[in-house]
């Protein structure tokens, strides 16, 4: 790769990635609505630049991520919208959505899941430059692995904290069984594009990725807590004032009493 394309990759992919991160942070953490809007705009521009990277920087290996990102955008948007429609057509006290929107929500979620499944078991597999997009394979294996973990955790939480939540427990159990079957089938049966042996290897490697992520993230949070603890423990304690004297209290009463309705009679 020559100098020019290195610069192109830096500007069109890595700078765009930094824009997404910075824009996301600004829109999440800023209190000013102007800054929040600017953050959202930055994230949008960065995300768009990443998605079109297969056309702008096709020779760079990083562009495969842009292709993957574009490939999952459709089903993810459908899933998000569908979940929103289902959740907010329930027993909401305000802004409750209609039954039609609830039905649309179910259709959207079903289509999104079918789309994701079609990527593994049908011809929708994201292929880039003649090969299965490696990032999609990582994404799919991680999605199944982590969803399964989240489902177990949610089951434990609902069982431990909830009161008469049998319906939710049954739902989570069904989801868990379905996820297990999907992974087991993937490990045993070859898809039209994804071989079972590749999927076995990917699940193992993705497992290593997820555990590494948990440990690394945990260490960073521990370090952050340590830094804040050290700073807060070294800060000077605020000066404690003496309690007011009898004379000061009398003076306060004399100032306050004309401004309090009812006055002495109520007291």
């Amino acid at each position: 790769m020559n100098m020019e394309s290195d610069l192109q990759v830096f500007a069109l992919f890595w700078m765009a990635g930094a824009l997404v991160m910075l824009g996301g942070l600004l829109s999440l953490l800023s209190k000013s609505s102007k800054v929040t809007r600017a953050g959202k705009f930055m994230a949008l521009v960065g995300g768009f630049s990443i998605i079109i990277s297969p056309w702008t920087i096709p020779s760079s290996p990083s562009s495969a991520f842009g292709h993957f990102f574009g490939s999952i955008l459709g089903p993810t948007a459908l899933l998000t919208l569908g979940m929103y429609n289902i959740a907010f057509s329930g027993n909401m006290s305000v802004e409750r959505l209609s039954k039609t929107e609830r039905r649309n929500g179910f259709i959207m979620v079903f289509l999104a899941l079918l789309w994701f499944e079609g990527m593994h078991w049908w011809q929708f597999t994201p292929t880039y430059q003649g090969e299965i997009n490696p990032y999609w394979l990582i994404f799919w294996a991680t999605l199944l692995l982590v969803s399964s973990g989240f489902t177990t955790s949610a089951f434990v939480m609902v069982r431990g904290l909830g009161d008469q939540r049998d319906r939710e427990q049954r739902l989570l159990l069904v989801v868990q069984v379905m996820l297990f079957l999907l992974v087991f089938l993937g490990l045993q049966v070859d898809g039209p594009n994804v071989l079972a042996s590749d999927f076995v290897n990917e699940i193992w490697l993705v497992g290593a990725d997820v555990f590494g992520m948990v440990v690394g993230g945990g260490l960073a949070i521990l370090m952050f807590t340590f830094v804040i603890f050290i700073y807060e423990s070294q800060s000077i304690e605020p000066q404690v004032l003496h309690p007011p004297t009898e004379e000061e209290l009398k003076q306060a009463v004399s100032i306050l009493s004309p401004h309090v309705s009812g006055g002495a009679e109520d007291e």
Partner: protein
Amino acid sequence: MNEQRGHSIWFTFSSLLFMPIVFCGLTFVIGMEVGDGGFKRFSNSLLTSYTLTSIFLLLTLFVYGDTRKRPIAPLIGMLVASGLGVLITFMMLSQGEMLMEDNGSVRAQALSNIIRFSTTLLAVIVSGLLVGGLVFSSLMQNSDHSSIGEEE
């Protein structure tokens, strides 16, 4: 009471990792040739996750600074912590075969690690959306209760 709460937090956290461990175990039962590259992926993921999370937390310190007269000490502390992550990553990657995968240079491996971390993060977010959305929807449809954990 606190001890019970501590136990339940640990139990919930352990349950989060239970199924991924089961699936990884299953890959060993099915294909004995797996395991090659697992250590590299774990180490690369750990270092990348540590470094990127440290940088993210460093940026959040600017919000923390709003309530604390913009102190410099925690910023320097987190800057050192993030710098340490970058330094260790590059040191480990420079050791040759130890953490290098199919990439030609240390820079390419580091960038590849960042992209892989982003992919994993996206998958975690979509998983959270899927499972969280399902539970939340189910809770909202149930008219008998308004919130979980309101009764003990």
